Structure formats: structure tokens, C-alpha cells
């Protein structure tokens, strides 16, 4: 189980999370939606200790993440797969080295076993036989799938997806969604998915939470979200430009000078 408890996080004067509270049950896929820059990625980076909260806490399996020492944080991270927005593949390594990288931390696996697991993970994401290629030789969609393979190769208990379908065409997005669902079925993982893509949110989510002004505004099943009459949520789902206005801070608002003459 992953629990966010009243998490506050600021970067300089910019307050990003302002009392973010959310529980993700075991085996559940929680989708977090929200406008760009509202702190969705910031929230999930707390789960793996890439960021520490200014106040509040994040618990994973009952462990307070920000209180773990380096060694115990390493142990926790080895149970969590993280898929980055732009894949974050190591560009100096081959695909096989990328996917097997997390496995090399383990002392109990031989080279042959690592190679087997790498091949299996690549098959799961429907990219068999690309082991010897370099990341630069792959398309954006393929790189994301390799990023997913790298995360699932360690056989995690938790999966965190940071905008896995952003920048992809609708068909490739659907493929990634299917892979997320399949990963959950194959590994029985608990997942958090960050996305702007409502089609993707409905396809993969057991529940959907909307992050707005630093905290959860709405949380519910895809059906409940579809039926919601919350104007902010409806504006986001329908992609209405006027719905963004309340989310803009005063300094971010557009000022249009009147045209003279």
C-alpha cells in the first residue's frame, strides 16, 4: 500500500503540493490526472525518495520513505519499477544492458539468468531481439517500451508510470496502455499512473484522482469520474480552455496589451 499523508512540497516560492493526501490499495491501479505543472510527477517522486516532503509523509509498505537510510531506501527502490516520461534510457548502453541494469545489483543472478530475464521482459513489451541495439536507434514508442521492460525486469511490487503515453500517437498509446494492464495481470503489481490522457486513464485505472492546486480534488472509479459534475474535473476532461483560468496563479496569467491604431 502507498499512502500520501498531507504532503507539502515547495520549490523556492512555488508551492507545488499543499496537503496532498491519497491512499493506493494493494493491487490497485491509481491514475493521477491534472493540469501541467500541478505536481503530479513531484508526487510520485516522493514514493521512491527522489524528493523529500517539506512536511507530511509518504508510506510504502508501512515504511516512511523520507526516514529511510541509504541502504534501506535502496532495498525499497528494488521493489519499485519507475517508468519515466521520456524513458530515461542510459544512452551509452545497449538495450540489453539497460534492461538488465537493475538486475546486476542482485548477487544471486548469473549472467545467463540476467540474459533470460532481459529477453523475457522484452518479449512482454513486444520487442524481442532488440538486445544489441542502442537507444538512439529506437523510436519514441519503442524507447518507452524498453523503459517499461527495464522497470518490470526487476519484478517489482509497485509500478510508477510518469506520463507513459505523452507524445505518442493514439495507436502506440493504446499499445502502452495494454502493456500496463498486462503488466499488472502478470506481476500483480500496485500501480500509480500519471497522465493527461483521459482515454488512457479510463483504460488502465481502477480509480482516478485529480490533483488540483496541490491537493486531491476528486477521486473515484472511472465511471464515477465520467458522471462527475465537478466543473473543474469536467473542464479538464472536456479540454475546455476556460476551465484552466482558476488554476493559473496571478503571475502566470496572460496580459494582452491593447493594439494601438
Amino acid at each position, binding site marked *: 500500500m502507498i499512502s500520501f499523508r498531507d504532503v507539502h512540497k515547495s520549490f523556492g516560492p512555488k508551492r507545488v503540493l499543499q496537503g496532498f493526501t491519497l491512499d493506493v490499495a494493494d493491487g490497485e491501479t491509481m491514475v493521477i490526472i491534472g493540469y501541467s505543472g500541478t505536481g503530479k510527477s513531484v508526487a510520485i*517522486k516522493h514514493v521512491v525518495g*527522489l524528493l523529500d516532503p517539506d512536511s507530511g509523509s509518504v508510506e510504502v509498505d508501512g515504511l516512511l520513505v523520507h526516514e529511510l537510510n541509504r541502504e534501506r531506501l535502496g532495498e525499497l527502490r*528494488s521493489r*519499485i519499477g*519507475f517508468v519515466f516520461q521520456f524513458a530515461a534510457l*542510459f544512452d551509452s548502453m545497449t538495450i540489453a544492458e539497460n534492461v538488465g*541494469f537493475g538486475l546486476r545489483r542482485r548477487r544471486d543472478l548469473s549472467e545467463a539468468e540476467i540474459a533470460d530475464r532481459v529477453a523475457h521482459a522484452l518479449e512482454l513489451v513486444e520487442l524481442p531481439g532488440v538486445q544489441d541495439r542502442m537507444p538512439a536507434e529506437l523510436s519514441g514508442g519503442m524507447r518507452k517500451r524498453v523503459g517499461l521492460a527495464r522497470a518490470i525486469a526487476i519484478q517489482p511490487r509497485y509500478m510508477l508510470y510518469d506520463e507513459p503515453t505523452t507524445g505518442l500517437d493514439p495507436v502506440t498509446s493504446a499499445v502502452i496502455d495494454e502493456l500496463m494492464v498486462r503488466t499488472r495481470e502478470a506481476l500483480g503489481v500496485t500501480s500509480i499512473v500519471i497522465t493527461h490522457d483521459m482515454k488512457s486513464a479510463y483504460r488502465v485505472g481502477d480509480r482516478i484522482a485529480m490533483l488540483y492546486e496541490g491537493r486531491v480534488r476528486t477521486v473515484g472509479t472511472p465511471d464515477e469520474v465520467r458522471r462527475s459534475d465537478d466543473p473543474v474535473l469536467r473542464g479538464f476532461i472536456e479540454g475546455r480552455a476556460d476551465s484552466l483560468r482558476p488554476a493559473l496563479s496571478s503571475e502566470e496569467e496572460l496580459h494582452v496589451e491593447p493594439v494601438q491604431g
Partner: protein
Amino acid sequence: MLAAIGRGTTGIVGGFGRLGLFLADMVRAVPDARTWGSVLFQQMRRIGVDSLPIALFIAAFTGIVLALLANATFTGAVPLYLVGTLVGKTMMMELGPVLVSLALTGRVGATMAAELGTMRVTEQVDALETLAYDPYAYLVLPRVLAGVVMFPVVIAFAMGMGLLTGWLAATTLLPLSTAEFVRGVRLFYEPFDWQFGLIKSASFGFTITLIGCFLGLHTRGGAEGVGIATTRTVVFSAALILVLDAYWAITLLRAA
């Protein structure tokens, strides 16, 4: 005005504070030998073997110039065999370590800052951490260790090259025999000469790699941030090399 001075002072003190914490994190990564050991030799090759051509190139021309400069300075008033003394002492104690290290701020330091900076802005460093790797053990420590070990090796070769080309210039372009040149080299030679040069080289290697890793891992923004980190690495490293050079002269040469 006062506010600007205050901000500048705060910035400098804050920078040294962050560098201190960075150093402490690097030291804490030392027990994780399995991680840094796996990439140490790769870094030693990149910093050492790959830097050898540029180091030898610089040393070769420095040796020639030193021999001819000594001759021009002596103007017959000083015995010419002392050309060997000047070439030997200067290559080993000063110009070998300093010139080669200044050149390697670009070859090694800037490369590290650009590489780690790019990894930072493309979230590759975050990816390392989520895969349970300590970036200090995997990225920083092997680079700094390789710098400390390989700078003296590269500069030792450069010293040898400088002496060789100094001898060649002296015996072909000046009225000096090999025996006289060697006599000059040996006249005031002490093992301390090369030891002094190599101690300095190790400290320069440490400084360049530490600054490159520190600024690289603290890169913010995109390509512009990487460019800033790279430029700062060259500027700060070059300045620190000259400061360290003076420090070693004050602490070791005064006592010698």
C-alpha cells in the same frame, strides 16, 4: 550595492557548503566498492589512456621551447649545459603538471560535466537511483578516483616527453652535446622534483574531476544548463589549478 555583495557572498558560501556535502556523500559511497569497482577501469582508460595523445603533444612542444628559451636567456653568461637543468626542473616541477592539467580541464572536466549534466536533465540520474544505484558510487567516485590515479601517470609520460624533445632541440638546434645536456639535467636533480610534480598532478586530477562531477550533477534546465555547467567547470578548474599550484609551492618548496 551592499545587497549585491551580500547575495554574492551568500552564493559563494552556499556553493562551498554544497560542495562539502557533495564530498561527504562521495566519501559515504566508498564502502560500495562493488558499484564503483565495476566502472573504475573504464574511467581510468577514458581519463588516462585517452588523454595521453594531447598530454604528449603539449609536452613535446613545451620541451623544445624551454630548451631554446633557456639558451636565449643565458646569452653566454651562464654555462650552456644548464639548459638541461632548466628543462628537467621546469618540466617535472611546473610546466608538465600545470600545462597538461589546464589542457585536461577541457578534455576531462568539461566532458564529465557535459555527460553528467545531460544525464541529469534527461532523468538518467533519477533512473539510476530508482534502480537502487547510488549515483555517488556509480558516477562520481570512480571518476574522481580515476582522476587521482591517472593524472600522475599521464603527466609522468608528459615529463618524459618534454625532457626528450628538450634534449632533441638542445642537441640539434643548439651547440650542446648529449653528455652536456645530461650533465645539466643531473646537476641539481633530486627525486623530490618528480615527486613534487606528481603530488601536484594528483591534486589537479582530484580537483578537475570533482568540479566536473559536482557541476554536472547539479545541472538544471536543458541544453543551456549543460552548457553553463561545462563552461563553469573549465573556468573554476583552471582557476583552482593555479591556486593549488601556488599552495603547493608555498607549502612544499619553502620547506625544501
